[in-house]
């Protein structure tokens, strides 16, 4: 599964990140450290409140950590945020699109913000719409799309500028099996094209299918990291990733 050389230079290097929301008693991130080599799909798994979205927000330069290092494509992301932003893409948990604009208009707008224009913008828009299977619905307002179509449009906008590193924050949440399958297929194709991805999800089978390496995060720390099959194999009483996950993070509800 893992066809990426772990010893290769890391595209994303996160070291000892600490972040605490103002007024919060507990740190959201407490020394989080991960390394993602170029071309790898890295899964960030964890229960609700484990710190996954906070980690993604810091890696996308949305939040500044209280402490730690963040290097992306060789740039210090905490000092050169603007350079880093042109290299990354984000597919957020929310449908972060303008609902009254069509799928094509949304792609055009975000593409323009990434500096695309003219034929290049048009070409990239068509390619992305085609990839996510929305070419036939490109001129419909996003608000008329089904949940799955919205998720696919959300993905298309995240990749319109061909980022070197794509962050996906639970991109398949709340959609039917068909749409989920299509998104996984799209992501597999992007993976095959060599795109590096950091992927958070609650669906273990997705992580197992897509990710070359995963980190299980809880209380803002990495509690296990490795190739999915290897992690399962290392625990003799676990037969799959979900059992391992529950064993490591416990069965207590996290609200």
């Amino acid at each position, binding site marked *: 599964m893992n066809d990426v050389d772990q010893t290769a230079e890391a595209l994303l290097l996160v070291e000892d990140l600490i972040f605490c*929301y103002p007024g919060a008693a507990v740190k959201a991130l407490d020394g989080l450290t991960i390394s993602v080599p170029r071309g790898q799909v890295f899964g960030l798994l964890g229960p609700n409140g484990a710190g996954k979205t906070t980690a993604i*927000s810091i890696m996308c330069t949305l939040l*500044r950590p209280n402490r730690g290092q963040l290097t992306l494509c060789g740039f210090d992301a905490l000092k050169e945020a603007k350079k880093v932003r*042109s290299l990354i893409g984000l597919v957020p948990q*929310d449908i972060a*699109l303008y609902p009254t*604009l069509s799928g094509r208009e949304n792609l055009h*707008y975000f593409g323009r913000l*990434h*500096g695309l224009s003219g034929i290049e913008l048009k070409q990239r828009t068509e390619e992305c719409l085609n990839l996510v299977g929305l070419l036939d619905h490109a001129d419909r307002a996003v608000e008329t799309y089904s949940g799955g179509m919205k998720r696919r449009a959300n993905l298309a906008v995240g990749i319109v500028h061909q980022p070197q590193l794509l962050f996906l924050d639970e991109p398949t949440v709340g959609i039917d099996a068909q749409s989920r399958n299509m998104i996984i297929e799209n992501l597999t194709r992007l993976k095959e094209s060599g795109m590096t991805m950091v992927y958070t999800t609650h669906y273990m089978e997705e992580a197992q299918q897509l990710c070359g390496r995963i980190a299980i995060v809880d209380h803002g720390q990495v509690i296990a990291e490795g190739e999915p099959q290897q992690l399962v194999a290392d625990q003799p009483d676990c037969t799959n990733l979900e059992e391992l996950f529950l064993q490591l993070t416990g069965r207590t509800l996290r609200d």
Partner: protein
Amino acid sequence: MKQFLATFFKDLLILWRDRAGMLVLFVMPMALVLVVSLVQNNVLEATGRAAVKVLLVDVDQGYVGQQVRQRLADSGGIKLIETVEESPLDEVTARQLVAAGDYQFGLLIPAGLSDGLQTEVEHQAEQLFRSYPDPEEQNEALELKVKVFFDPTVQGVFRTAVLSSLRHAFFGLETAEKGRELSQRLKQYFGSMKTQESEQQLLGGNAFMLIDEEPAGGDPALRPNAVQQNIPAWSLFGMFFIVVPLSGALLRERQEGTLRRLLTLPVPYWALWAGKTMAYVTICLVQFCLMLLVGKYILPLFGTPVFELGNQVSAVFLLALSAALAATGYGLLIGTLARSFDQAAMFGAVSVVIAAALGGVMIPVYVMPKGMQLISQISPLAWGLDGFLELFVRGGNVQSIGSNLLSLFGFFVVTTLLSLLVFTRRGRSGG
């Protein structure tokens, strides 16, 4: 620049597709200005120009009634109604009609008033020409009362205006009667060379002391009227209502995660901010132009005076631009501070209504109590309205509205900086 333009056109497109938002932005202020101007035009006419209907019950059926009819008809301010549904009015019916609010005033000339007036005038004249006037008789002057009854809902200023007209008519009648009697007595005592016509001219002719009304200073072509005042007032109100859709749009971007995505893009935040601001400023200016067109072409169809833009078009545009910037800045601040749509819509709308009331949009500032006049100075709508009235009514120019322009632009700068400050602080802390 490309990113600024992309955001500018994106926001215009979103606004264009938001039918409910467009209704709030364009139809509501136009409907408001239409209704308020027509209503106020009618009020102005009721209190000044067109005749007010007053029920007349003339029990006396004598000389006083004839004279009062004549004098009120000449003044044009009051129209006397003596029959309702083809039946002559009596006191009871007239009182019922006024009490029910069907008419606002009733005038009762009691029986014997004409005779009483004649007797009293003759009596006073006799006293005047008597060699030794009786001081006791002098103090026994008759009180001849005419009754006026009014609808209790009629407000003070309107009531005072109608009563003044009636008093004016009765005072003129009494003076004329006294003059006529005096003239006859003079003729009896001294003889006279004057003709009957010249005597009538002196006693009952047209007044030769006239009141000439004109605005103090400014362009005489710009006549103060309801339209000249309401168009700028309600245009400003409509422009500031941009707060509701703008703050809603900002909240939507925040709550739906679009802002989160925008902030991960290699775009300076000022470009997104400026693009959005300019889109909403453009909408405000289009709204303003539409309001001017309503005043120019639609209101006159309902009988109001035509709105006159005057010859300071560039100053008008500059002031409209400053007001649009101020309104947009306020919308940005509300959208940044509010935590929910309800907060933004409620606080935004209510604060604009309060600022409009304070700013003289609904009631002119000069009729407010002294304390409220002082408070009104903090309303951006007051700065804008004062500027527009300076241009539309007082015939001012760009120099004379300098302080208004600066105040509005300063308000835009302060609100924008505040919202950026709040936004940056929240962004850093993840709040």
